[in-house]
């Protein structure tokens, strides 16, 4: 365990050396945040609430969504891709550590650095330019945090599974971009899926993506009652279990394959 804690620490050191990399993301998130704010303001002009969500809550939703996107940072796909391309997967495997344990620890380290480099500035900009993104009911905080942790794990597993494509496809740069933006769309992070036609919304509810962004955000703005939230979190947990099972099976096969084909 201490090994992985140290990997996290090293990753934080590494992330902090690239200060300039992070400004791009702050600017991008600010643009997304501000444009959606105007978009929702315009949309709510003649309406006080849509699906039980008023304008104020919606603005909170998008600020927290931008902040949350920092926690959904994953480098595991690119890390796998590069280690396959450069063959460093071989030297990684030479060490008495689990390959994916290392990737996970590295992502945690990066995110800890990003919380300071990215998330806090985004929250500050959102607060100054849009509104204070206060939580609807502070008593929901434990539930919100738990749900964010599950979200994070689901998101990471999807990324890791995706990255494993690199073992067969080698170059997945373009696919990583497609996945990233598709995921933001399907997860309700920019437009919550209650705005989608029922049929589409129902399909999306069955997929794991909405449980990455929309569920914790709904809890944050106090949408729906407690029973509904708990029910959704059960689905969220179920997805986590399913994805972990798939991940575990695939990971086993993929590492075996690398060891047969050569790094």
């Amino acid at each position, binding site marked *: 365990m201490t090994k992985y804690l140290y*990997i996290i620490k090293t990753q934080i050191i590494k992330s902090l050396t690239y200060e300039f990399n992070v400004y791009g993301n702050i600017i991008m998130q600010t643009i997304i945040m501000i444009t959606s704010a105007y978009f929702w303001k315009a949309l709510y002009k003649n309406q006080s609430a849509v699906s039980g969500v008023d304008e104020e809550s919606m603005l909170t939703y998008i600020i927290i969504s931008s902040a949350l996107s920092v926690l959904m940072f994953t480098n595991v796909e690119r890390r796998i891709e590069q280690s396959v391309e450069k063959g460093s997967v071989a*030297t990684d495997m030479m060490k008495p550590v689990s390959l994916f344990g290392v990737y996970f620890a590295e992502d945690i380290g990066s995110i800890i650095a990003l919380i300071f480099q990215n998330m806090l500035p985004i929250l500050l900009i959102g607060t100054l330019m849009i509104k204070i993104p206060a939580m609807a009911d502070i008593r929901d905080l434990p539930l919100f945090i738990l749900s964010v942790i599950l979200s994070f794990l689901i998101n990471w597993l999807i990324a890791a599974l995706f990255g494993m494509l690199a073992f067969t496809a080698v170059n997945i740069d373009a696919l990583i971009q497609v996945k990233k933006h598709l995921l933001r769309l399907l997860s309700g992070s920019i437009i919550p899926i209650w705005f989608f036609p029922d049929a589409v919304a129902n399909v999306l509810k069955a997929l794991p993506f909405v449980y990455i962004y929309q569920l914790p955000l709904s809890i944050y703005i106090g949408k729906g009652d407690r029973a509904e939230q708990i029910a959704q979190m059960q689905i969220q947990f179920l997805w986590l279990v399913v994805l972990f099972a798939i991940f575990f099976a695939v990971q086993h096969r993929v590492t075996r394959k690398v060891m047969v084909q050569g790094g």
Partner: protein
Amino acid sequence: MIEVKNLCKDYKVKHKEPGLKGAVKGLFKPGFETVHAVNDLSFRIGEGEIVGFIGPNGAGKSTTIKMMSGILTPTKGSVLINGEDITKHRKAVVRNIGVVFGQRTQLNWDLRLGESFELLKHIYQIKQDEYDKTLDELDAILGIKELMGKPVRQMSLGQRVKGDLVASMLHSPKVLFLDEPTIGLDVSSKYALRKFIREINELRKTTVILTTHDLGDIQELCERIIIINHGVMMEDGNLSQIVDRIAPYKTLVVEFYDEEAPKHEKCEMTEHEGNIAKYKFMKKDTTAAEIIADLSTVKTIKDVSIEEAGIDDIIRVAYGS
């Protein structure tokens, strides 16, 4: 220490026909070809040996090293390190081995060298006092401490290889695998590397297995060599014995005062140019002293030198077959 038994590795390679037609055909009906990269290798290596693996490019040296260090799973056969099968107990066995690939690094580009070492210290769970001791010891050989604060990406190749060597020895492995460690290094870095290998072998009884194309490495380091070609073992044994067997001759170069060179019945004159003549003789037939003595009765000799058959000749003979 290390026991390799009937080691085989087959690769399936997509067989593509040339040209556009072939490319299109390959999309629909890919043909596979099996390549035997390593074929039935068996040998034992004892503790504290330095063994050189030589062979032309694509002979299967790296594949063998990769299988021996547990990165590749053999198609057939087994590798036992200290009696443990590497494919079955990978995590336990890798603690006992260190690997340096000359063409890639295990150091982290974004970290300073010292930070990379610290990370390895935690990964291998090396105790602080042991870590300090090892580092001091390695520093005495390579002078690595002055590089500790330098980011790896700013290092020269020579410095990086030094860093890699230290990194591979931090956890005091019993076996060190070096895959073309001297590739691209300048003379002084090569010298430092060879010195390092010799010293850790003496001090720590580390078993060293290296592949190289640099014959100097072999001559200076290895008592034992294994020659492979096309994945098959050609030779395995003591370097000087192999030289004696494959090239059981020496060449005597004699310089006379004029252009006339006498013949000698026990050897063959291979070259004769100007005042200089070369006599090739079998070691079992005669000695250089005898030839010189005989020749000097016929003509006055100005100067002599002896050319030994070296590893180059071995390689030429072995590769040529």
